[in-house]
């Protein structure tokens, strides 16, 4: 049957005092960056590859704002061009009282670059609330979560109108994204990122969920299970995957995190 392993990179930003690098499943959220970035080689029937990863470089601008640059990919020969996606983002954050606001410009493309979109986005999240485990891990449940509410205005500047569906040439999308982390016990971490989009053109909805469970084995080497189900942009084509395997990563502050996988898509 299947498989062979993979993965993961070990970004380090010790040399750069304030700017850092993180690698994970995607740059879309902090919890997505806690999920493994994986490269999977499947040698069962034929040799196929599956790449799921993102990199984010970020740091401060002035005293109260910050800027990030990111790249992400769901790609590899195990995925069809419609199921594959690439993205790049520039995103700025600023604290606004008890809220954090972000403005972003993102490039999205499918696997064959048949559909390419540019999206200007704005999103907000509250700083946090202890009694609701919002932004901080609750002592009893060991649960932590964070919501983001956002809106994107974009243009599909390459690709036939039918390929760009359900959004069309110009579009507005409103989304709610939730990041959830659960640490049932020391050394075990579950991370989930779920996004629901309301697509103004056609009044349609789409969702996408990625989740991972990492069991720390030794100094950042972990056994990881990773799942993705849903219809991510730019094509909003339904795709799902399941990966299980070993991995390793270091975050920019030197803390070990779980990563990795072997494929059973």
């Amino acid at each position, binding site marked *: 049957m299947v498989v062979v392993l993979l993965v993961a990179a070990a970004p380090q930003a010790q040399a750069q005092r304030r700017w850092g690098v993180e690698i994970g499943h995607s740059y879309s959220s902090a919890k997505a960056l806690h999920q493994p970035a994986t490269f999977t080689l499947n040698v069962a029937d034929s040799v196929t590859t599956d790449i799921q990863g993102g990199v984010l470089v970020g*740091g401060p601008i002035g005293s109260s704002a910050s800027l990030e640059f990111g790249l992400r990919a769901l790609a590899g020969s195990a995925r069809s061009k419609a199921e594959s996606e690439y993205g790049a983002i520039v995103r700025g954050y600023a604290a606004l009282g008890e809220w954090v606001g972000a403005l972003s410009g993102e490039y999205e493309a499918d696997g064959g670059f048949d559909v390419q979109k540019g999206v200007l986005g704005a999103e907000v999240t509250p700083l946090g609330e*202890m009694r609701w485990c919002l932004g901080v891990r609750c002592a009893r449940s*060991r649960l932590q979560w964070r919501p983001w509410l956002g809106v994107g205005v974009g243009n599909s500047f390459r690709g036939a109108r039918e390929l760009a569906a359900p959004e069309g040439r110009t579009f507005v999308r409103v989304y709610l994204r939730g990041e959830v982390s659960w640490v049932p016990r020391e050394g075990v971490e579950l991370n989930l990122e779920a996004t629901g989009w309301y697509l103004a053109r056609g009044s349609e909805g789409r969702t996408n969920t990625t989740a991972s469970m990492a069991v720390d084995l030794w100094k950042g080497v972990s056994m990881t299970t990773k799942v993705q189900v849903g219809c991510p942009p730019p094509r909003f084509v339904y795709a799902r995957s399941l990966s299980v395997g070993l991995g390793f990563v270091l975050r920019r502050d030197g803390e070990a995190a779980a990563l990795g996988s072997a494929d059973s898509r």
Partner: protein
Amino acid sequence: MKRVDDAGHEWEEAEVEAAIKEIVAALTPGGTSGALKRATRLEADLGWDKWYKLKVVKPVKKRLHETLEDNVVLYEVKTVGDLVNYLWSRMDEPGPVP
């Protein structure tokens, strides 16, 4: 040696550390200041995420009369000790008595 906050109040470093621990404990579910060490990591040990760290800015301003820069809190403050050191570095040494 004492230092002075922006409101003119004098602080020993130990007093700053105690005040910071009380603020951090009050923002941590089930937290107590006695359980906190200078090496306690806000994210890895206390479960704070990146943005939640900014919750310290307001109580520090109210109690210790110092304004923290958001980006220093976000990118350089990893531990309770980092926060104590940052706050202590912002306080002024007392000037000569006229």
